Every structure is written in structure tokens, then in C-alpha cells.
């Protein structure tokens, strides 16, 4: 299975980005092949709907799970519809986040956080 992780950079030592829609990169980790791919988050600077566009990238990358800090209501709806599980992880680098996941120490996010949380400057 593939796992998508919101990341501040494009290395395994990068810190996990707590924002989903507006993170800098996604790490796509393939648990079977043990491979990692880094994709730039094209939605990062969208004027609106960043979470939705980021969620589309997760679907297109064929992930079965996402690890992030928080997720807004729109992206969360897409994840639910697509059957992708979303796990919450606090401060950690990507390597550690994956270890916590494989040790089953991450909790499922079962409800959406506030909208526009990752935008800065008070939302709009």
C-alpha cells in the first residue's frame, strides 16, 4: 500500500507539515517496495480549495492512507468518499512518522478540523 505524508521538505529528514492542503511536499511511501517518492504540492498556493486539490493528488497517487497534522472539512469529505484513511501525527520528521505508523501508534482522524487553518493571515 502507498501512504501520503504532508512534508515541509523533500527528504526523509524533513519535518512533517501539520497542514494538509498547503504543505510544501507530499512523500509517497510504498510499504511493499520500500520506496519513497517526493511530489511537490501543486495546491500549495491555490487561492481557494487547496485541501480539495491536495486530496485529488492523493487519489491520483493511489494512496490508501494519509499522515498529516490536521485536515479541513472539504478534504476530509474527499478522503472519506475515496476510502483513504487519515492519521494524525504531531511534531516528527518523515522517517519517524512512518515508524510511528508501522508501530500502529498513530490515531485515526475521525472528524475534520476548522476550514482555512493552514492559510495564515486569518484565513482569507
Amino acid at each position: 500500500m502507498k501512504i501520503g505524508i504532508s512534508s515541509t521538505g523533500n527528504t526523509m529528514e524533513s519535518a512533517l507539515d501539520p497542514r494538509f492542503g498547503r504543505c510544501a511536499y507530499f512523500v509517497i511511501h510504498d510499504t511493499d517496495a520500500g520506496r519513497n517518492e517526493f511530489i511537490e504540492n501543486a495546491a500549495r498556493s491555490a487561492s481557494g480549495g487547496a485541501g480539495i486539490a491536495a486530496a485529488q493528488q492523493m487519489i491520483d497517487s493511489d494512496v490508501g492512507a494519509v499522515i498529516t497534522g490536521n485536515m479541513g472539512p472539504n478534504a476530509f469529505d474527499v478522503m472519506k468518499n475515496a476510502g483513504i484513511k487519515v492519521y494524525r501525527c504531531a511534531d516528527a520528521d518523515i522517517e519517524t512518522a512512518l515508524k510511528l505508523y508501522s508501530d500502529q501508534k498513530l490515531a485515526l482522524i475521525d472528524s475534520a478540523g476548522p476550514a482555512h487553518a493552514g492559510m495564515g493571515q486569518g484565513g482569507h
Partner: protein
Amino acid sequence: MNLCVLSGKGGTGKTTVSVNLSLLLGYNYIDCDVEEPNGFIFLKPENVMGEDVRIDYPVIDKAKCTLCRKCAEACLFNALVTTKSSVMVFEKLCHACGACAVVCGADAVSYAQRKVGRIEQGISRGIAVKRGVQDVGEYMGVPVIRQLLSRLPEGNNILDCPPGTSCNVVNTIAFADRALIVTEPTAFGLHDMELAVRLLRSRNIPFGVVVNKHSADNTLIQDYCKENRIRLIGTVSYSKEAAVAYSTGRMLTELPLYKKEFEAIALKIGEVR
């Protein structure tokens, strides 16, 4: 003739200047600040009638949709997502551009309408008083502004703009022949006013400046106007009396000092050309 009143910075007195000038000049008052229109509080119009503002949003026919993803890729506003089982529509993000139906090869996209706001119009002391009101929870004011300004009353109109220089303002000044910038003598007021100046110059709209919250010992805006050859139309004095009148929904022209100041501004409006 449509005179738009804008500011750059919020809270500088666009509505204060607009409502007082409307009554003095006999111009109709059009509140284009659809996110938070407050001109009606001062003009208290009667016989208010209204109509809804509705916009299109896509409806996907599941039986015809092939999940090809073209619609989601074409959408510049991230209103569509294609999952493995369906296309999800986030209607509040849709700008009703129609691209999804154009790219759909399966004829699966049609449009329905939903309400995003309201237009209201009444009469106050002989002038038409009109406003657009964006529904709570909606992101976009532009459809409301366009419908509001597409049918303006006959004669001269004052268009009380939203703050800033965003899409809402750009779409309002598209209907303007002349403009007034209302600003305040603070660094923030000047900074945001410069953005408004650049916007108006880019659209070749003639404009003048009114300094609100004016006090004799602060000539920040006057100095800027002189340096940049911008016409100063007048000043509105800073006082507690004005703030108290404003906070209780009264017109400043009910106060003798302000009546004089607004009459002076009204006389000079013709110089904006």
C-alpha cells in the same frame, strides 16, 4: 454618471462619506460592500423590495460519467474532485465558468442554480437606495455585485465600494466614471490608499481624495497628494462628536461643522474629471 467611493484600507469612512454626499448631491446610493453593507443603517430606506442572486453550479450525471477526470483537471477553482467511484462537486468554490461542461466528452455535466445573495432597493428622501447582500457562508461577492450594478437607477449614482483592491472592488469600479478615495492620515491609510491609486490609474478612472479623521497637525495625506499631483477634494474632521453620531446611525450632516465640510466636498466633486 457613476461615482465610486473606495479607500484601500477598511474603516476609513467610505460609507460615512457616501451616504452624506448622496443626500447632499441627490445622487442615488448603491452599497456594493456586499460582505457587510451598512449604508441602509444611515439612510433608512422605505418600501424596500428585493430579488435573489442565483448562480450556476455543475451537476454530474452518474449514469453518463466515465470518471475520465477531465472536468476536475479543467476546473481552475478546485471545485471538482474525481475519485474512483464518483465526481464530487464543491459548489461553493464554483465560479460558474462552464469549463467542466465544455471538456466533458460524455455529456454528463448540466447546471443547476443556487442562491448566493440578495439585491434590495428602497427610497430615502427622494433618492434610490440599493444594496447587494452576500449570503452568510458564501465565498464570492462578485456575482452579487454584477447583478447589483447591471441595472442601476437612472441619473447619478454613488457606488460605495468594498474595502481593499480585491476582485470585489475591481468589479465595482468597472461601472465607475469617476472615483473618490476616502482615506485617513495614518501609515496604514496611506499604504492602502496607494494601492487604490494604482488600481484607478490602471483603469484610467479620474479621481480625487477626501481625508477623513483629519486634524490640522497631520498633513501626511496632503503631502502625498501634492507630491503625486492628486486632487484633494476635502477633509472631514476627527472628533468624538462624529464618532458618537456614526455609532448611533445618524448622518454627520446633522452636525453644523460636518454639514459645512460635506457641502465644501460636494461643491468640489465636479473637479474630478
